[in-house]
């Protein structure tokens, strides 16, 4: 498998506060990578760096071998990177369907369109005419994922799908993931919920304070070592 995404030794700072320290992440085409870590580990910063919302001070981000430095966030969507951001960030003055249509703004061809998203999330189909401001958290998250899919991404970035949701709802949302990866989509998911992350991912990478402290195949990772790495204590 060749690498679709290469995050190569990036330093990212917010003003004086550095969030990522020479962090490298590689995701192969078709693979699902889960990045886990505690609050403030730098997971969202990693995804924002890939999406182009924040710029690394050092290092490079490459898609399919081509550097994305100098490519603004809105152009990266056309290259095939779509994100469901932390906190969902739906457009509250638009309906559910309009939110999905905005996701298709870049007009990338591919399998995902309104019908396919509605088939994936039947509940979203029922709410299509509603204002996105009047949805439950789980519904909002489903719309956010569907909206990202509408861009027909090669690389789908999911930031904390489980945030603030009941476990049963989280399980329902993640149950949709196999149908997404079946289309050949590469997925980079960020989670605080370690069990959920291990269940859906091929590989897992654990961050602590902006650095990688553990990585390995999701089915063979030592959970004791993982929880030690997660909290930053020596196993």
């Amino acid at each position: 498998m060749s690498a679709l995404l290469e995050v190569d030794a990036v330093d990212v700072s917010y003003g004086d506060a550095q969030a990522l320290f020479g962090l490298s992440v590689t995701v192969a085409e078709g693979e699902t990578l889960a990045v886990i870590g505690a609050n403030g580990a730098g997971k969202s910063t990693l995804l924002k760096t890939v999406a182009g919302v924040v710029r690394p001070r050092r290092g490079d981000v490459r898609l399919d071998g081509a550097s994305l430095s100098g490519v603004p966030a809105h152009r990266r969507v056309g290259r095939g990177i779509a994100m469901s951001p932390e906190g969902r960030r739906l457009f509250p003055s638009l309906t559910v369907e309009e939110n999905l249509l905005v996701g298709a703004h870049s007009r990338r061809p591919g399998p995902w369109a309104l019908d396919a998203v509605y088939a994936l999330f039947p509940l979203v189909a029922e709410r299509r005419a509603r204002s996105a401001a009047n949805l439950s958290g789980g519904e909002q998250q489903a719309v956010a994922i569907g909206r990202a899919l509408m861009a027909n991404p090669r690389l789908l970035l999911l930031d904390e799908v489980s945030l603030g949701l009941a476990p049963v709802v989280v399980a329902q949302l993640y149950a949709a993931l196999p149908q997404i990866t079946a289309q050949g989509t590469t997925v980079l998911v960020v989670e605080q919920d370690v069990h959920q992350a291990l269940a859906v991912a091929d590989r897992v990478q654990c961050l602590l304070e902006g650095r990688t402290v553990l990585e390995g195949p999701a089915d063979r990772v030592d959970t004791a070592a993982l929880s030690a790495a997660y909290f930053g204590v020596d196993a």
Partner: protein
Amino acid sequence: MSWVNAVVQGILLGGLYALVAAGLSLVFGVMRIVNLAHGVLAVLAAFGAYVLGDTLGLHPFLALLVVVPVMAAVGYGLQRGLLNRALGGGELAPLLVTFGLAVVLQNALLEAFSADSRRLDLGSLGTASIPVTDGLAVGVFPLLAAVTGVVVIAAIGQFLARTATGRAMRATSDDRDAAALMGIDGRHLYGVATAIALATVAIAGVFLGARSTFDPAAGGTTLIFAFEAVVIGGLGSLWGTLLGGVVLGVAQAVGAAVDPAYGVLAGHVVFLVVLATRPRGLLPSAVTA
């Protein structure tokens, strides 16, 4: 009868005010900028039509075919070159930049055209009227101005509601960073919004210039009336702006019917009363723009 007449004339005047205010309302709704150069830009468009009439003999309405696209292009360039930068500079920066622009434009117009008053000549259209009953006649020109105001507001509303670009504009107005994650280039979209706004300003300027005399300093009053219409109606609401224009127009016309000196004052008083009692306006927007 004179009261009915005043109200009818006021409603028509309100349609014209809505036309003048539509662009101000759109720009505020989409990017939260109060464009203080709005009035002067309308005067600029009126001078554009004046020059075309003076040199080529074009009727003001034919001149619109030139003035509208030129002003739209100016709007796009203004947004991309100046206002987008100002937007990154905090709340006050766009206000100061548009204020500076208004001052510069007004002085440039003064240099180019002197302080003389001009008027766009509509020919027979300017004086034609339709008798409704005894004592009540509706001028063709005020009617045309009001209808144009309604059509422009409705067209912008449909554009925002139904087109992909309009949808992207509403999304950007909600959350610009999230919109960028959808592939939307906020700088371009803001450029399009200001282009549309200045296209409507061009139409408004020509109507204003045909309705009464104008000079390079006329932008101030124009801005104030437009601003009052937007605020009375509710910031960010297009149909509110139409309602605000009509309320302002009726207040001015009824005030003037009491005593010609009270017309403008009555408008200001109604504006203040609305601001004091319903600070969010008569139709505060549930939906942006």
